[in-house]
């Protein structure tokens, strides 16, 4: 549409020679970027390539060390976000900038209140929000507190914030990293709607499929520099991947059929009520055998977290749990004193948690300290009364070597690694323990394709070594690519099991929406809007 015909018109955004250093780290070096008006422009690059930094500069969050920004052809000095907002730029950050205990409405008006009193702004915003909800199918309850919203809805709030500020240029930093496929699809339809209105969109993502699907142009960053800008129609995922990583990347998981052996974990009729009395798990039964990957698909919030926590030995406080489980034939306590995360590890259960920054790592600890995290009792890490830090460091260095964690410095704090490399540390720690059973939650969230390829390979290798793996992911692609069997969770229940080769995303989508296989109702009826169009997505590259 707009982009191609308006070659003469000034670009919506033009960046010239932008550089930015954080202390000794050169995050952006001499970057040029032109984004034509009315287009969707993709930005890709490895973790830590400098994408977020560049966009934050455009939004006035960081000040560049050098360079020039042109908006609509005129140079502007973006001293702070207020200037950016006035220039019509809106941004949805990778890590949302919402006030958790404010209502949606309060978040939306923050910074753009009309007058000193809140009441008029609030009622005005309420009206505008209603209008926006109708125009873009962006409905959220304006009076709900943000912390009670799902991530998908929180993101809507961020988009609403930008639209409420009448942004013409919308920057989205990894918006789909935390979304379910259905939510992501919904988001893309909104973006297309915005583009049709003549708005300009910059989209950062690690998912090449999304780039191919929705963008007009795409720019590739590597180590702080802009290495290419191409028309999407003139490139391919393989080419983009190579530009990003600097080497060829296998986009498909390469695996042989599973040769499952005896059951490792048998769960029977697992139920769980949380402290508030809400039923989270309603009778889960499943078996995982040695040498197979059981994938659990489902929209997040349907009990997967609770399942992983109970199996990992740390159910939330005050929960009431029923049912039973056996690990290698011996009973596995699901609650009470025997249900202990440390004991689970000794029982041979490894766990890659869903949130690496909150659970999986101590961000202030060094990489080597994080390698002992959870395994501080392990005999090889201890020498009598004391921890054997040398041994831990040696072990850490070896793991970082094998898992290609960059930079290869085990004395660096976890927070100084990029997301992908942080995840590699967690994966290395858990996989290298060679557990009989590995619990995995969202292994590749926010991770770049190079690292995804690597992590997937490791998971398959562990399976091939005869270990049992429980994989929870909201990425259907990932589930289908890795699993030997797929179970779908909905509302605390397992809706059904499928073999990946014998199912479609459409069928799984129905199960994820809580429609059982026996119900032969038309796809659209009775299905929540978020999941109704799952089957329309072109998927299944696996």
């Amino acid at each position, binding site marked *: 549409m707009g982009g191609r015909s308006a070659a003469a018109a000034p670009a919506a955004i033009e960046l010239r020679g932008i550089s930015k250093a*954080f202390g000794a780290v050169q995050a952006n070096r001499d970057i040029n970027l032109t984004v034509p008006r009315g287009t969707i422009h993709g930005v890709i690059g490895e973790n830590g390539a400098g994408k977020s930094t560049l966009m934050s500069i455009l939004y006035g969050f960081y000040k560049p060390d050098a360079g020039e920004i042109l908006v609509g052809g005129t140079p502007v000095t973006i001293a702070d976000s*207020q200037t950016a907002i006035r220039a019509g730029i809106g941004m949805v950050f990778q890590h949302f900038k919402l*006030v*958790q*205990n404010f209502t949606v409405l309060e978040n939306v008006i923050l*910074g*753009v*209140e009309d007058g000193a009193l809140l009441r008029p702004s609030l009622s005005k915003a309420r009206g505008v929000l209603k209008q926006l909800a109708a125009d873009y199918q962006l409905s959220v309850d304006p009076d709900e507190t943000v912390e009670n919203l799902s991530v998908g809805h929180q993101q809507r709030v961020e988009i609403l914030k930008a639209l409420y500020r009448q942004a013409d240029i919308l920057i989205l930093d990894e918006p789909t990293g935390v979304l379910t496929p259905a939510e992501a699809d919904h988001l893309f339809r909104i973006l297309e709607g915005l583009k049709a209105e003549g708005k300009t969109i910059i989209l950062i993502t690690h998912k090449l499929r999304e780039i191919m699907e929705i963008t007009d142009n795409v720019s590739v960053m590597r180590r702080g520099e802009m290495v290419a800008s191409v028309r999407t129609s003139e490139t391919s995922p393989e080419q983009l991947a190579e530009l990003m990583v600097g080497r060829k990347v296998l986009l498909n998981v390469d695996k042989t059929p599973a040769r499952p052996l005896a059951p490792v974990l048998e769960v029977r009729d697992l139920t769980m009520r949380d402290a508030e009395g809400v039923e989270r798990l309603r009778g889960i039964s499943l078996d995982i055998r040695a040498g197979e990957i059981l994938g659990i698909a489902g929209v997040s919030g349907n009990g997967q977290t609770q399942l992983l926590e109970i199996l990992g030995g740390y159910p939330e406080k005050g929960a009431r749990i029923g049912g039973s489980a056996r690990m290698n034939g011996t009973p596995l306590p699901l609650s009470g004193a025997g249900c202990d995360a440390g004991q689970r590890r000794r029982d041979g259960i490894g766990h890659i948690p869903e949130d690496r920054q909150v659970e999986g790592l101590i961000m202030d600890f060094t990489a080597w300290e994080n390698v002992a995290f959870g395994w501080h009792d392990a005999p090889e890490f201890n020498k009598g009364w004391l921890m054997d830090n040398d041994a831990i460091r040696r072990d850490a260095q070896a793991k970082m070597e094998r898992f290609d964690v960059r930079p290869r410095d085990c004395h660096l704090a976890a927070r100084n690694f990029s997301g992908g490399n942080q995840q590699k540390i967690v994966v290395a720690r858990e996989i290298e323990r060679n557990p009989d059973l590995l619990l995995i939650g969202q292994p590749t969230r926010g991770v770049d394709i190079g690292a995804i390829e690597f992590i997937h390979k490791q998971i398959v290798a562990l399976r091939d070594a005869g270990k049992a793996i429980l994989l929870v992911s909201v990425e259907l692609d990932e589930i289908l690519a890795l699993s030997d069997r797929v179970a779908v969770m909905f509302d605390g229940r397992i809706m059904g099991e499928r073999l990946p080769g014998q199912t479609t995303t459409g069928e799984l989508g129905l199960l994820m929406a809580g429609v059982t296989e026996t119900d032969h109702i038309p796809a659209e009826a009775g299905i929540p809007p978020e999941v109704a169009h799952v089957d329309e997505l072109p998927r299944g590259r696996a």
Partner: protein
Amino acid sequence: MNIRESLIAILVLGICVVWALADGAAAQQGIGSALRLMTPLLLACLAGLYSERAGVFDIGLEGKMLMAAFTAASVAYITGSAWLGLAAGIGGSLALSLIHGLASITFMGNQLISGVAINFLASGLTVLIGQNAFGLGGRTPALTGDGRFGPITLPGAEALRDVPLLGPIYSGLISGQTILVYVAFAMVPITWWVLYRTRFGLRLRAVGENPASVDTAGISVTRLRYTAVAIAGVLCGIAGAYLATGLSAGFVKEMTAGRGFIALAALIFAKWRPWQALFATFLFGLLEAIANLYPNLDLGVVVVPSMFMNALPYILTVIILAGFVGRAIPPRAGGEPYVKER
């Protein structure tokens, strides 16, 4: 507002009612005493509320109050005007606020250390300057006349004095306080209104929860936090001035006697909310008044020694805290400087 959040209020009012029924005269005196004793606590507590709601922890309330008490008393003595004293009190406290702001906002330092330093600074400077100026070992000469804030009789107080119930409450308790007491109590609804009904309040609460949200909205985190810290300075200033020129007649070294810390406890007790702050400080005032009125509680078999009656408010605080109040979650960004670039 749910039951749990109103528990302190119910408790405090319950104590008042039971006391009034048991011994009306003592209750009137005790509650009056509680009102006076809670006033500096309330002001300091609200000061802390503004600062901490904006994400700047403030354990320097004590020091700011002390400094304010000193400057207020000194200026009130020199000029003979309590109002000028008040202004000086606010000024003295503000000066320390500025230091706290510099340390914790501009230079992204440790807010706790800064608070500790301010307490020390006030404790030393007041005596040092006072000794230099008045030669009384840090005391100021006694204030007289207009150098002090006197009690104000509210309209109709005399007429209503003999009306049952209303008389003792209105004429005996509400009327006859100094102006600063009314200021302190008025600050509660004002603070509530500012916090929850104004643009400033919205931004203030936001900057204490997630400063990045404010920053990305194009509002200066620094300016907001300085404003909050300054408001805290003003309120501590009033509190100190009240101590020196309202409740007593001059400055005595260390005269805040730990009230800043009690205010801090009350703030946590109140979970950083204005109405709850009112009741939490009232509770502390009330407990102290009770201990004052019944210094040797004779329980028939044993006489509780006065030391324990003195410690009673603190013991009860712990019990109430453990029994009723539950987890207090501070403003999420509290205590941490806002650092954009590591």
